[in-house]
């Protein structure tokens, strides 16, 4: 038995002749925080979109827990316990944070198609929703309009919503992008905290965050894997240094 929660085999995506992702073989070990890094345009977000089936791969397969999920729809993948976040904050801006989290929780009640029932039955989820909001430090904002929250708080809310689904594998697309230093530290701590008992695959630009969090790192360049390994090893790799800083490291 392999302890790889997610495996891709020759994953490839062509956009009309331009190969955005080329023969990527990823192996994500269960329980790890695995970081996907690389310069702009290296294909990190495309890999994410392929893994969650927001894009269909041109070639290659994706296995989750040993099952081939290459042919499944995005919603099915989510039902399997692979939940993603987005590069720009993915919240429901005109709802309150409480409602945001409840939307993730209500699915398991099995009443989501019940248009004849009052939404009062969702109040039974309030306790759980508040607990989740508490865990990301948003309890006091539970009933404000989400769109009016500060950016860092929206990202925190997004993590709380993702956690509400109790995912086996969380895919975080640049969780600290566009944040001030304080927020970055908060989110880093938060990701660390929620990584207990689950696997996280994250795309991240901030190398300090990666250094702090990641157990293993895959470096992408021009759609292909440049190298893979723990931070200490990867950060010393001359190819990686060149990809990131040009040849200035002489």
């Amino acid at each position, binding site marked *: 038995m392999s302890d790889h929660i997610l495996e891709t085999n020759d994953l490839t995506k062509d956009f009309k002749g331009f190969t955005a992702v080329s023969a990527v073989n990823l192996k994500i070990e269960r329980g790890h925080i695995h970081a996907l890094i690389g310069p702009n345009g290296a294909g990190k977000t495309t890999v994410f979109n392929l893994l969650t089936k927001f894009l269909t791969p041109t070639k290659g397969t994706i296995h989750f827990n040993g099952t081939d999920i290459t042919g499944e729809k995005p919603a099915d993948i989510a039902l399997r316990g692979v*939940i993603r976040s987005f590069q720009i904050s993915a919240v429901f801006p005109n709802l309150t944070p409480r409602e945001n989290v409840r*939307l993730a929780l209500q699915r398991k009640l099995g009443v*989501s198609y019940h248009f004849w029932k009052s939404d009062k039955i969702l109040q039974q989820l309030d306790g759980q929703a508040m607990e989740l909001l508490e865990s990301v430090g948003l309890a006091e904002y539970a009933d404000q309009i989400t769109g009016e929250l500060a950016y860092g708080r929206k990202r925190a809310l997004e993590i709380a919503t993702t956690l509400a689904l109790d995912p086996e594998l969380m895919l975080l697309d640049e969780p600290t992008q566009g944040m001030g230093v304080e927020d970055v530290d908060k989110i880093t701590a938060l990701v660390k905290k929620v990584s207990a008992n689950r696997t996280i695959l994250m795309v991240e630009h901030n190398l300090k965050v990666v250094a702090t969090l990641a157990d293993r790192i895959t470096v992408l360049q021009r759609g292909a894997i440049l190298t893979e390994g723990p931070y200490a090893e990867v950060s010393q790799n001359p190819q990686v240094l060149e990809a990131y800083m040009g040849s200035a490291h002489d």
Partner: protein
Amino acid sequence: MNKTVWIVLIILGLLAPFIVYPIFMMKLLCFALFACAFNLLLGYTGLLSFGHAAFFGGASYITGHLVKVSGLTPELGVLGGTLFAALLGYVVGSLAIRRQGIYFAMVTLALAQIVYFVALKAPFTGGEDGLQGIPRGNLFGLIDLNQTFTVGTSPLPLNLYYFVFIMFCLGFWMIHRAINSPFGQVLKAIRENEPRAVSLGYNVDRFKLMAFVISAALSGMAGSLKSLVFQLASLTDVSWHSSGEVVLMTLLGGVGTVLGPLAGAFTVVTLQSELSSVGSWITVIIGVTFVVCVLLFRRGFVGELGRLLKKSL
């Protein structure tokens, strides 16, 4: 929303036929229901349909035919029209939700034009003349909907009015319930951020289709009632003008608000009837009103009012 507001509105609705010309009031209610049903789709799911006349007008033909030719009682006629609209909504919706934005609107428009063409050419619709002289009949075979009660000097068709009013309340309540249900929460999520709703594991296509069918069915109910009130099913109701009008009503009143479509429908229908003496200038006046309203109150009357009061109306 506040209970007292609802009670006041219901009392106003009950008293309305003694104050306003009842046929006019019923027309208002039919269009208000139509706009509310449309708003479920535009305001709460974020889908702009440009073919809702097919459901409104199509159902009026079916009801007219069932009552006039098959001799069914009016409540069965309305039920038949509503079911037809739901079925048609299922077909149109299944095709249209494969596309988004303007393409979605265009698919609905194209399919609605097919319905218009059928209404124009099919043998049972009466072509250019429409179905005329649709009998109102006896509700459940018992209550004569033609019966009038003389209050003061004028005879009032109170049976018909209260039938329409009750059906309106029922439809309105259903929409209100759907918006404030677990289902409605998911619809709002889809409107706000569709990819995120997908990534939470919701099959958004199914939700959109269900919303489309509910909206189509209730639009159909509005059309069915209208055909009983005016004893007429005509091409006007199935033409794309009607599809445009309901968009106008919803935007004027305030998209995504509970009372907005009601206010919008009342405004447009009242303007049309009050200004009918000025002839074809009416479209210019309504057009200017629309432009001014959109520029001044981008959220519609009710939307702006709600913002002032910091309440969702």
